[in-house]
């Protein structure tokens, strides 16, 4: 299967996502240029991290107007799988593919550190390789990751089980000291109602090799591979890696 990685001017995790998909997962990957509308027959689209268009105006605010984004929107409406990571999440929010918005981190600083997140819903194409409540260690790196939505939206997200990941302690417990940016309801990742578009602040591509400290990010990519293949299998080598 093929992952398409969108390249905006200012994307800087595009090569990392490409590398993780190709080397850690052994899947095909292709770069999709922002001015094109050709998805190159990708099965999954990744909107990578970075500072698309310099994050001028607001994070993701200009990227939503890219020609590629209209192709991605059509793809998502047809049920195609879209994963937005960090800046990619911000772009999904600005595009209206996901609900809510990002505020600056609670401490007003960029923060880069490994965090723990707990999976809240394993019946998704992004999490089918995980156990219920499984805790993953994956790094974050952002200045605007403080997820915000009004109370009604939050409630809707919760009741429809669209909250996919929450920040937590290593034990899985939810606590303010384990919420690195002040996100509402500890939200680290949400999906759309149809369940085919996910945005998450942590970077799974940075947690795909033991040499770099964690392989937990591979569960997410592997889930996508499973979903496209139509089956539900546990990621190869995961048992050994744990």
């Amino acid at each position, binding site marked *: 299967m093929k992952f398409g990685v969108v390249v905006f*001017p200012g994307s800087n*995790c595009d*090569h990392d996502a490409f590398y993780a998909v190709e080397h850690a997962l052994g899947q095909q990957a292709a770069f999709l240029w922002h001015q094109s509308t050709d998805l190159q027959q990708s099965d999954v689209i990744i909107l990578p991290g970075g500072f698309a268009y*310099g*994050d001028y105006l607001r994070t993701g605010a200009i990227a939503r107007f890219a020609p590629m984004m209209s192709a991605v929107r059509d793809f998502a409406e047809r049920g195609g799988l879209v994963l937005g990571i960090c800046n990619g999440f911000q772009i999904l929010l600005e595009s209206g593919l996901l609900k809510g918005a990002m505020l600056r981190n609670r401490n007003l600083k*960029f923060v880069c550190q490994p965090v723990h997140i707990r999976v809240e819903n394993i019946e998704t194409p992004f999490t089918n390789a995980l156990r219920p409540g499984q805790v993953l260690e994956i790094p974050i790196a952002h200045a605007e990751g403080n997820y915000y939505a009004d109370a009604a939206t939050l409630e809707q997200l919760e009741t429809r089980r669209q909250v996919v990941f929450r920040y937590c302690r290593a034990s899985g417990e939810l606590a303010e000291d384990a919420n690195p940016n002040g996100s509402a309801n500890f939200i680290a990742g949400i999906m759309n109602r149809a369940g085919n578009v996910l945005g998450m602040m942590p970077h799974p591509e940075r947690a795909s090799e033991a040499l770099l400290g964690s392989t937990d990010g591979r569960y997410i990519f592997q889930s996508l591979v499973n979903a496209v293949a139509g089956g539900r299998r546990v990621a190869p080598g995961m048992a050994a890696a744990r």
Partner: protein
Amino acid sequence: MPLISPELVEQHNLTPEEYQRILKTLGREPTLTELGIFSVMWSEHCSYKSSRIYLKRLPTQAPQVLQGPGENAGVVDLGHGWACVFKIESHNHPSFVEPFQGAATGVGGILRDIFTMGARPIAVMDSLRFGPIVSPPNTPAAPATDGAVNPALNRRILRGVVGGISFYGNCFGVPTVGGETVFGASYQNNPLVNVFALGVARKEHLFLARAKGAGNPVIYVGAKTGRDGIHGASLLASSEFSGADGQQKRPNVQVGDPFLEKLLLEACLEAMHSGAVLGVQDMGAAGLTCSTCEMGARGGVGIEIEMERVPQRETGMTAYEILLSESQERMLLVAQRGREQEVFQVFRKWGLDAVEIGQVIEEPVLRVRQGGEVIAEIPNAALTEQAPVYERPWAPRLRSAPMECPIPLEKRNGAELGEDLLRLLSDPSIASKRWIYEQYDTMVRTNTVIGPGGDAALVRLKETGQALAMSVDGNGRYCLLDPRRGARMIVAEAARNVSATGAVPIGATNCLNFGNPERPSILWQFVEVIEGMAEACRTLDIPITGGNVSFYNETDGRAIDPTPVVGVVGLLQKSDCLARIGFRQEGRRIIVLGGVVTIREDPLICFGSSQYAQTILGTSWGIPPWVDLEYEKRVQACCRRLIAEALADSAHDLSDGGLAVALAESCMAGGQGATIDLNWNGDPRLLLFAEDPSRILMSVAEMDLVKVDRLVSEYNIRAVVLGTTGSAALSLSHQGEALFKIPVSALRSRYETALEQALEAVSS
């Protein structure tokens, strides 16, 4: 009536003698534009006129060196068809005047130096020095404070500098993988911001900043030229400060746009790979002037440019302003005539301006036209290799610190020594820099094997399976007491940091921060540092492939401590065959490779240069140790061998704070306690806190001790077993008598919170 008055010459920071030289070179009076050009190109910052003759003493050659000093950055061969490109540069004065933009553009400038060579930047490190951020504590011999220390100002500068580095590096997409942050009174009103950057390239993609082929187009790319940063090199970087300058000189600081630089990186690399580009030079210090005459000089040709074609951000700019502007994110390319459309196409793709502003000419001159009319024409050589060189007078500086310990050193009991350790761990210079480095993206590009907090950073190369270790180190405390000894120590330490990951040092870059070289005592410090650095680099086989000299680090007549900073790069052939600093497993034997005492001098005299003397005793005296470089080399080689043979479970260099601080750091990093007995006669205070060189703390399996011992003998060095890892506390005894036992959690709570408390808890 001459156009150029003596006052005008003085305002341009040129001496009357230098002006006479200009008259002689040109055979006529210069135009105002030409005077401006001479002013920046003959500034200390661009011409190295006070340092050049001494820099020649540094070893720069080795078989692996592909490019030594003289280009934008040095280049070292990695094998497998790859090379690494690295350099360190200062941005001290701009960072004092405007901390955020000063530091940000410091990062931007060095990154351009790297990709100008055709390499993609993959790592940045920063060596930062600030004045104290907390009020000096009560100490037995607190030095007379002149009331000049202003912690609130220093905190503000630090926040700005860290914010600027974070802003620029994170957006550009290069990981900031390590560095150092040190506090000292001499950096009050003169912070040091030295930025190191490293990139990699395939050897056939390397580029030089040379113009060639008369008639070839000279292409300007990137940001438009504005009035920012005019005379940054000559006025900010090449003169002393007075207190009021901080405000007045703010317009001389440039403003950075990392997004634009990211586009410039991608576009330049793509254009360079197309084969249509012959030479590239970034516009950094002295902007368009410097890039045109240097590219011409290096290529043995000339460049002619037309001012009216230069993209301008504002209207009404004079040629003088355009030529001297230090607007950021601009590059100059020489392309092959006939293929310029290929170049333009690449830049259009990335949404960047690219304009032909002139051409290469045969005469070796810099010729500037405005509306066709020649308004400046100067031989390149006069601006570059024939710029003034001074052999200024130097004389040893009188010692301000005594040789002997000036205070009675009363015996400390075990509990007091434990308290001393905790105080050292919470000294901002030693404490964890997490508050700083968590604001940097340390992992982007997914190559960071060891990030901030280790001895050296380690970045793997996906393309070859190798990894590069890098460490930046300086020590103004040592160099003030004895510049030559201090320089030997810092080179040895930076190399040791690299060796402690398992990597072999392959090259170095230096950033030499000093006061005003026109003062004989300052120049003496500089000359001595060069001498010490050259000795250490020669013995340790580490060529210096480039760097930067930053003079005039003085404000209101007060110079910084002499602060050479060296960045050493090492190569690890297999990225996963490495050591980290933390004690990872219980029941491992703890050894000090090199031995606990490695100096043959009076230990008390050397103790005066330690962090302990400064932090706990509030004074300093004596001299730093005289590192035995041959011994150092063998210790490092043995360390690397132990790591390569998978005998080392951890390895950590001993430096500031000595054995006790290193033990605490290894405990905290690995979450393991340790039980240690110091079985030597003598004052346990010195055993714990002295800073003898050539020592590496390691943990090894009991069953491997025999093998370790054999290798230690093979390298003809010493090593001692100190104790065992395990339990949840660091327990120390001296010849069987308990000194202190501190839970690792208690070490951590001091070490991890000190900096944050200093910066966040105080309202300022």
